[in-house]
């Protein structure tokens, strides 16, 4: 499986270099643009294993690649699709996914509709979080853009209503209303976490999961809908925004221990609110986001008793980056995740704080290299769901602080 993935990756990297051109072509008189991207990362931590990678021993398990084709059928109608494949530690396993595929009809600048599998617009970077070449960072702030659950959250199968409304002295408002179904990523972090984590409380004073392969969960999904509003303010370079999302997730499978019985987790309530801001002044970029997602879920224990789990997570980050030259950009962010807001924030079982420093080198217009230091405090293991620090890759428990080096090379065309 990994050999196949490596060949695919090599092919994606090599083909455009050999051709030294984009794969654009004309079909029935219409220009079709083809673009591709790929990245390979390496992560090394002093303790703990992060994002299911064996980071404490050094891991190259951070690979992704994809390509897309799109064309304008008419002045108002566009169609396109993107294939995506990834491996992240024990996740992904190079199973190709249809990343997005949709038709987009724009009636007016202020009203368009797109339908199919659509990347969900939320916050500053939700729909572009997985394309490293668009961002300063090797790893996006994991509090808001967790890489391990990307496949479960990045898109919806349904549609968007969207548009841009310019109001002379007020700037431009860009809105998106979205609705549809969350896709199921059987190789993603959500199902992996549920399958490999047992809900036994961490021992008092300790910092350790009790872990076991107690479930075989195969499905995650359900309806999702919400809205996003970007405001490009009259102050040059300042963008403000807000997003709101409601989702009704169902997770199904079987308990495998102590008895084989059906497992079902349903959402009682799950509403996420997000606020964000970006200010760009020349080569300086400041950004910040805040997200609140209280949720209540209900699940059946192996003995049939229904129990509820409550989580009121808060997350956010502030970042600052500066591009010194065409080839060098430096940046830093501070990311915070609180698993359950009403409980003690300073407890490392309830938080993940990550201070990150990055240098990005653009080797040329199509290739970038990043080197990034993470100084992480906490692992937030007390929650309903894992958040990057999973039980199975950390059978000996977790240390409350961790330093990690991440290097990533990326290509796009």
């Amino acid at each position, binding site marked *: 499986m990994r050999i196949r993935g490596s060949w695919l990756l090599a092919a994606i990297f090599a083909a455009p270099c050999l051709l030294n051109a984009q794969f654009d072509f004309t079909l029935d008189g219409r*220009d079709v*643009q083809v*673009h591709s*991207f790929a990245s390979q990362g390496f992560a090394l931590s002093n303790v703990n294993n992060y994002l299911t990678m064996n980071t404490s021993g050094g891991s190259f398990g951070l690979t992704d690649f994809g390509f*897309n084709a*799109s*064309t*304008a059928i008419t*002045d*108002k109608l*566009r169609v*396109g*699709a*993107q294939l995506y494949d990834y491996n992240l530690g024990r996740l992904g396993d190079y199973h190709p996914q249809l990343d*997005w595929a*949709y038709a*987009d009809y*724009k009636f007016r*600048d202020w009203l368009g509709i797109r339908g199919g599998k659509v*990347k969900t617009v939320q916050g500053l970077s939700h*729909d*572009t979080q997985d*394309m490293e*070449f*668009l961002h300063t960072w090797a790893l996006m702030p994991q509090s808001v853009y967790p890489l391990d659950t990307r496949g479960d959250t990045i898109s919806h199968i349904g549609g968007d209503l969207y548009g*841009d409304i*310019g109001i*002379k002295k007020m700037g*431009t408002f*860009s809105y998106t209303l979205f609705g549809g179904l969350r896709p199921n990523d059987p190789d993603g972090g959500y199902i992996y976490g549920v399958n490999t984590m047992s809900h036994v409380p961490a021992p008092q004073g300790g910092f350790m999961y009790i872990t076991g392969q107690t479930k075989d969960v195969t499905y995650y999904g359900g309806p999702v809908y919400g809205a996003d509003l970007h405001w490009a303010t009259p102050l*040059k*370079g300042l963008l403000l925004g807000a997003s709101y999302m409601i989702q009704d997730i169902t997770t199904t499978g079987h308990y495998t221990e102590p008895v084989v019985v059906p497992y079902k987790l349903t959402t009682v309530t799950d509403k996420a609110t997000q606020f964000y801001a970006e200010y*760009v002044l*020349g*080569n300086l970029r400041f950004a910040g986001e805040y997200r609140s997602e209280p949720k209540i879920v209900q699940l059946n224990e192996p003995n049939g008793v229904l129990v509820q789990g409550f989580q009121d997570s808060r997350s956010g980050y502030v970042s600052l980056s500066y*591009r010194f030259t*065409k080839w060098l950009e430096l940046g830093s962010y501070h990311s915070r995740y609180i698993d359950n807001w009403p409980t003690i924030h300073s407890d490392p079982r309830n938080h993940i704080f990550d201070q990150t420093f990055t240098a990005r080198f*653009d080797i040329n*217009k199509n290739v970038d290299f990043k080197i990034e230091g993470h100084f992480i405090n906490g692992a937030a293991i007390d929650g309903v769901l894992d958040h990057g620090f999973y039980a199975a890759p950390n059978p000996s428990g977790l240390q409350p602080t961790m330093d990690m080096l991440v290097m990533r090379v990326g290509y*796009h065309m």
Partner: protein
Amino acid sequence: MRNTQIFLCLVLLAVCAAVTAFAGDIKVIANPSVGASSVSADEIKGVFLATKTSLSDGSHVEPVLEKDGPAHEAFLKQFIGKTDTALETYYRSLVFTGKASMPKTLPADAEMVAYVAKTKGAIGYVSAGASTAGVKTLEVK
């Protein structure tokens, strides 16, 4: 003291020269099929950021950019408010989410004029001194 005054005067002159260069050294051009004869700065920004696909008269337009050079730099500074790198990143974010195609980019004024002249709906920009035979020069309101 005298040297400081001379230095400050030179800096002031350089700033004035730079501002003047950006203010009037480009022309916005369009294919003759575009009905509008003038365009606002907000419309230009919208068209080149792919949030607008038509002008106020209803003409459908497709933006065309120069790869680099003084006209390109002046255009970005005057109308778009993004650096060249930031604009490329912005376009890529649209292309890799399927929301737009990568706009055509051309190496210099002559190629820009030739392409805009033959391409229905094309809108671009050139240096003020460039020949604009075969295209329409839009007044910027």
